[in-house]
């Protein structure tokens, strides 16, 4: 038995007809209207088909190269990401926020794999980045290239050649030598993913999905021994790469950090001399000094349906701490301190685990598959600035101004698979500083501005079937709860709509807001940084 049903969208068709009547400049007969509708629909359909298979770089670059050199695998992407600020020009703290675009990045990545033998391969990943925000808008608050050209363009070997390594594989052993990045852990966010430094130019807007391009790869030896379902991974890292935080004059440089933009530019122009506290050149660990090298080990064990792992990392703090090394009294009688920024050794001990199950008999959805992930990192000897000690030093006491504390950061994620390919994730995270006191600044892994922070992250995403799943919408909410002093440091909300123009071209719109919290708080300081972003990516 076969039946025919009417088209499912008569209302839409009526709307369409009405719109066409409005738009048409010609006399409309029914025949003409119908032809016009179909002509336009068919034109768009042709364009959609053309776009679906549009892959010029794949066809004319990648495929010919791979045909000529069969042992070579070649791939890459071009991406344009832009974020536009939604609030007008104003002064915020120490910042002159007179720019609208916080990024206009053009990124080209080329990835090459050359198979020397079935077991040996050379990998090279190159990034070319140009951020047009500094050239394409007239802003007094954006001058970061004068501090670091890397903020505008990747202009040297260190940044352009992101990865270059030789890998050798047997059934039980992986040896990877060269410049590489390591991502440990299973969670969204950085918990035991601590091996490489990170380019944090976007500060609070650095997303987990961008870690791949923001990690700072380092030269290292990476050896993994596999035994059964388990593995033991050992890293030897002679090369140290620190975090790259936003520099003065960049869009996400914290408005809390003095001095004001005008004063920084005056110093850069040589119109004024440094005054007050002075900083010596940062002392960095040396690749040539065996004692400065870093070591890490990771054990992974599979006991289905549970998998778990342990890590230990003898590392440097990725950010230097300002040690007081001297003081002087200026002409006004003020005591100024002399700081020596130095990196400090730390011990990271971490755990990761995940477990899968399914809940039965859940109302409305029946069976509900879920995954539980847990991750935690305990770090020993984390350096913290102690402002009481600094004040004591100004008063004549001899101390370094730095104290060490242990910190812990941990998270537990519950991920559910709801009908309609809808993912829902709840991930409460904890940042904690042991033996905390109010005079402490911030340190790796600890709470920000408080003894503890709790971030109950909520995330939901689903594709829309009426677009044949080409449209996906995701919402992330990150409230920042804090104690015992600040209680609430604001909330970050992120709404992302991703549309697949084809399997090669993807577009994305992102709306990010930073709401509530005090102007000294993690998110509160960025209350005027709400922004709308778009991204267009072509992979070949």
């Amino acid at each position, binding site marked *: 038995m076969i039946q025919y049903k009417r*088209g499912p969208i008569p209302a839409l068709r009526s709307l369409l007809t009405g719109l066409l009547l*409005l738009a048409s400049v010609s006399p409309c007969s029914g025949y003409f209207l119908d032809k016009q509708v179909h002509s336009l*629909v068919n034109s*768009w359909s042709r364009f959609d088909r053309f776009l679906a298979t549009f892959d010029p770089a794949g066809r004319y670059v990648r495929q010919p190269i791979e045909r000529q050199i069969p042992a070579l695998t070649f791939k890459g992407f071009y991406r344009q990401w832009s974020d536009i600020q939604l609030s007008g020009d104003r002064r915020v703290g120490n910042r002159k926020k007179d720019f609208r675009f916080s990024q206009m990045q053009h990124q080209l990545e080329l990835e090459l794999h050359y198979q020397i033998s079935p077991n040996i391969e050379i990998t090279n990943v190159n990034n070319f980045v140009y951020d047009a925000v500094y050239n394409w808008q007239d802003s007094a608050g954006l001058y970061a290239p004068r501090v670091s050209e890397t903020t505008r363009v990747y202009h040297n070997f260190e940044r352009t050649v992101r990865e270059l390594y030789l890998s050798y594989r047997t059934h039980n052993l992986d040896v990877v030598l060269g410049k590489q990045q390591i991502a440990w852990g299973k969670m969204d966010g950085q918990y035991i993913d601590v091996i490489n430094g990170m380019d944090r130019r976007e500060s609070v807007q650095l997303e987990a999905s961008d870690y791949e391009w923001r990690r700072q790869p380092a030269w290292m030896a990476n050896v993994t021994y596999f035994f059964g379902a388990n593995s033991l991974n050992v890293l030897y890292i002679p090369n140290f790469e620190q975090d790259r935080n936003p520099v003065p004059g960049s869009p996400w440089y914290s408005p809390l950090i003095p001095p004001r933009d005008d004063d920084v530019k005056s110093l850069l122009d040589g119109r004024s001399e440094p005054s007050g506290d002075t900083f010596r050149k940062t002392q960095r660990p040396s690749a040539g000094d065996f004692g400065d090298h870093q070591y890490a080990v990771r054990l992974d064990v599979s006991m289905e349906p549970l998998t778990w792992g342990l890590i230990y990392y003898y590392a440097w703090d990725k950010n230097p701490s300002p040690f007081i090394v001297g003081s002087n009294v200026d002409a006004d009688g003020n005591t100024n301190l002399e700081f020596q920024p130095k990196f400090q050794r730390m011990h990271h001990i971490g755990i990761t685990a995940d477990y899968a199950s399914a809940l039965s008999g859940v109302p409305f959805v029946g069976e509900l598959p879920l995954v539980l992930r847990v991750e935690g990192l305990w770090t020993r000897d984390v350096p913290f600035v102690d402002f009481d000690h600094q004040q004591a030093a100004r008063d004549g006491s001899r101390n370094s101004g730095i104290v060490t504390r242990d910190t812990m950061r941990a998270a537990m994620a519950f991920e559910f698979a709801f009908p309609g390919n809808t993912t829902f994730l709840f991930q409460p995270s904890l940042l904690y500083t042991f033996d905390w006191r109010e005079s402490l600044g911030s340190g790796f892994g600890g709470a920000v501005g408080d003894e503890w922070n709790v971030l109950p992250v909520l995330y939901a995403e689903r594709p829309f079937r009426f677009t044949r799943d080409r449209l996906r919408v995701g919402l992330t909410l990150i409230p920042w709860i804090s104690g015992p002093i600040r209680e609430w440091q604001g909330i970050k909300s992120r709404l992302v709509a991703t549309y697949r123009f084809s399997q090669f071209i993807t577009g994305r719109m992102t709306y990010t807001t930073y709401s509530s919290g005090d102007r000294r708080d993690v998110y509160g300081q960025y209350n005027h940084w709400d922004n709308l972003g778009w991204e267009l990516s072509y992979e070949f």
Partner: protein
Amino acid sequence: MSIRLFPSFLLTLFAFYFVSVFSVPAVPIAGAAEQNGGQQKTWKTIDELSEAEKATIDFRLDTPRDTAIPYLPAEPYPFEPPYTAEEMGYRSMEFPHVSRWSHAMADVFGAITSNGYLDEGITIGFSHYLPDQDGVPGQLTVAPGEAYFRMAFYYTYPPENQDLQDLWILRRTDQQETTKLDNFIYSPTLRRVRRQPQPRRDAQFPNSVQSFDDIVGRDAWEFSWRLLGTDVLHETVRFPNTRPTVTLAQPDGNFYEVPADHIKMLGDTYPHYTDDGGVACYVVEARTRKDWLPNYRIGKLIYWLDRHSFYPLRIEQYDHDNQLVIIEVRNAYLVNPALEGRGYAGLFTVYYDIGLDLMSYSAHDAHWVREWSKEDQRTMFEPDFMRRRWLKYPLKTQALVYTPEKFFLRPLLYPEKFPDERKIVVSEVVARRIDAQEEAGHLVFETTSQLSATKTP
């Protein structure tokens, strides 16, 4: 066009886009579909079967049960004729989308929307069947909750998915042990192996017709089985006239061309084709048992099972209103002769969602039956292996469709067959697209004006 009207015009363009991409155009129908495949009556209800045909069938619905596992028939697998419908269902379990033996293959897949938006991919699949025995008997040797099959998939196309990997560990289920899959994904952009919740068994994958159960198969004990009759199929997967040949691959990397019209439903070596090239089938209904599958999206399935090996050449899925929603058709061939009739594996499979007018396909190219070495077993099928990004056996394939115009034809609807059991509702627009396809011999993506349509019922 005046400036004043320009915003309206933009709005109109947007609406056109919305209509063409996101929904089915509501064009009044001009003609009914030709959907009988041009054959004379090939199907018989039970009442129409001859005595000789009836002798091969056990019509009982209530048969003795296995003493240890009450949901299994008492008769030992693989059963002896005459077969009950339930036994046919158990035999058809031998043939899920991914073959039930250890093997490697290049799995080419894709989907196309009604207006021709094509999405394709390639994954190299490595399957390790854990029990000592292949097939259904092997699955039944493991206890509920225990793993019986490990599948690793390494994506090589399109570029956005290159180096993406999946590991599926299938578990035998029963009413207490309901977890069917441990699922791990390696994402190259995250550089992490992540355990994922198992996909909902009845939910279609994004931009695809296939559900998880369509790929890993359904367990016969979760359904009530009933024989509807017999039929002779002459076509399952249909190639368009724009794709006269198909390039297939051997596991050793050699390619060969096959004329599309030479690809038979069960391969060249199948000995039971009818004189006119058809395959005689049992047609059985599998109705979802609510005590096993509560909230399952599918109300019933109808299988066309080859009468000799019980290979499902056509599977129809119906919703709870008994309305046909999805058709799956397959071409297969004898890949694993050691298993005789149980050694058939799918070559091309096409899935069709009638409501969405969405099709997806899968081609299992370069099928390589193999016993994995101890080292491979220990390493390749573990989650941790994925972060090594080591495609150890890089099988080649050129079986992609590449262009929308060369995509498979929609499966035949056969509206005249078993009309009391099969309720088929097709929108006018889809019916017209089917008409246009049948007339052209390939998919037609562009709609015609209702006033200029010429086809009549």
